[in-house]
């Protein structure tokens, strides 16, 4: 049964990877971008390989992390902590699937827009943004709910430290500045279009607010997990849990950074190619570290359940 489930999950990942690679290599590159960076179509394809390979590696890492976490959650489903870990695992599953889905939707929407397909010319960016928002929101709701459920085991209510409130305020102000101060009012010289292609009020209500709410959920979840880790008993149990909670915190952070990157897309478009690649690789590295920590933590906890 487990192998059947594993096969289905990796079949899903394989399909998404193949689709992404095929579309990336076969679909023509935007001529404006070729002109901006002074490269040919073939050079652009070679360049896309240097992003594609680490990107697919990160997707595999993310799926591996989620599957190991899910295996652990299944092994303890009848325990007091079972339902909570199942919710957390579902949240990380949504984020793991979200990585290739977001990449594919962006690729296809961009291609259709460049090919002057009217609907996608007007709505491509909006569609890809909303897909990303829905995925992040769903995932963080599950992760938040799982983290809060874990607190029931400690029978303690964590105090809300000022540092968490301040961190959220700083995050909110920074993101609003990134979107309203840079992303909308300064259209890119290359694309002549703002990042979100929507009126300011609509961006505020349908993009900024949902993301701030999502990150609030994520911040609280990371804090609750940390509180649980400190207050739960079990020296060996805590060692596994430490990696898991740190991994989830890093994955939440990577989602925040990803959205900041998108909000600053116009400014990043002005960067040299080398600098842009560094930004992309750094982001991928952070995502990979998060899921690797989740896998490591889940493995440690699972060994406790399997050893006899």
């Amino acid at each position, binding site marked *: 049964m487990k192998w059947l489930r594993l096969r289905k999950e990796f079949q899903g990942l394989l399909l998404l990877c193949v689709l992404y690679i095929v579309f990336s290599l076969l679909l023509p590159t935007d001529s404006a971008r070729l002109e901006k960076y002074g490269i040919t179509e073939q050079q652009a394809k070679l360049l896309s390989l240097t992003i594609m390979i680490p990107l697919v590696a990160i997707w595999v890492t993310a799926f591996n992390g989620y599957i190991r976490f899910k295996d652990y959650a299944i092994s303890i489903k009848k325990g*007091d902590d079972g339902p909570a870990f199942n919710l957390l695992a579902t949240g990380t599953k949504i984020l793991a699937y979200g990585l290739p889905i977001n990449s594919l939707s962006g690729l296809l929407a961009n291609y259709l827009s460049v090919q002057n397909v009217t609907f996608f010319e007007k709505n491509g960016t909006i569609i890809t943004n909303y897909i990303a928002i829905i995925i992040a929101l769903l995932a963080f709701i599950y992760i938040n709910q799982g983290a809060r459920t874990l607190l029931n085991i400690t029978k303690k209510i964590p105090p809300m430290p000022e540092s968490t409130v301040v961190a959220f305020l700083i995050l909110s102000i920074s993101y609003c500045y990134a979107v309203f101060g840079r992303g909308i009012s300064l259209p890119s010289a290359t694309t002549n279009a703002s990042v979100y292609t929507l009126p300011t009020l609509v961006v505020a209500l349908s993009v900024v607010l949902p993301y701030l709410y999502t990150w609030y959920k994520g911040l609280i979840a990371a804090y609750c997990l940390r509180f649980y880790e400190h207050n739960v*008993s*079990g*020296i*060996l*149990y805590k060692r596994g849990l430490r990696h898991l909670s740190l991994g989830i915190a890093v994955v939440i952070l990577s989602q925040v950074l990803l959205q900041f990157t998108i909000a600053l897309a116009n400014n990043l478009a002005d960067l040299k190619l080398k600098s842009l690649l560094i930004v992309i690789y750094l982001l991928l590295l952070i995502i990979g570290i998060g899921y690797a920590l989740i896998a490591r933590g889940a493995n440690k906890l699972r060994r*406790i*359940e399997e*050893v006899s």
Partner: protein
Amino acid sequence: MPSRSSTLYYQVIDVTKRYLGPAAERFITRQIETHLNKRADKLTKKDLQQLLDWIRVAMALLTDDRKLIEDYMNNLGELARK
């Protein structure tokens, strides 16, 4: 589900919780049912030494921390001496 009246079983779990937290009850139940071939609530003092031996082996598979294992075994050993 073993009842609370099997106090030795729950005493063992209480000690184990310091090391395995919420996984303690599952761990101990598995050790008793797999190695002693009896229901967890049927644990008696006579079974304790054999159980401790199996727990030591299982803990050695989970961690290299000998101090931790010895600490755990000493705490369980006190139950056998009561």
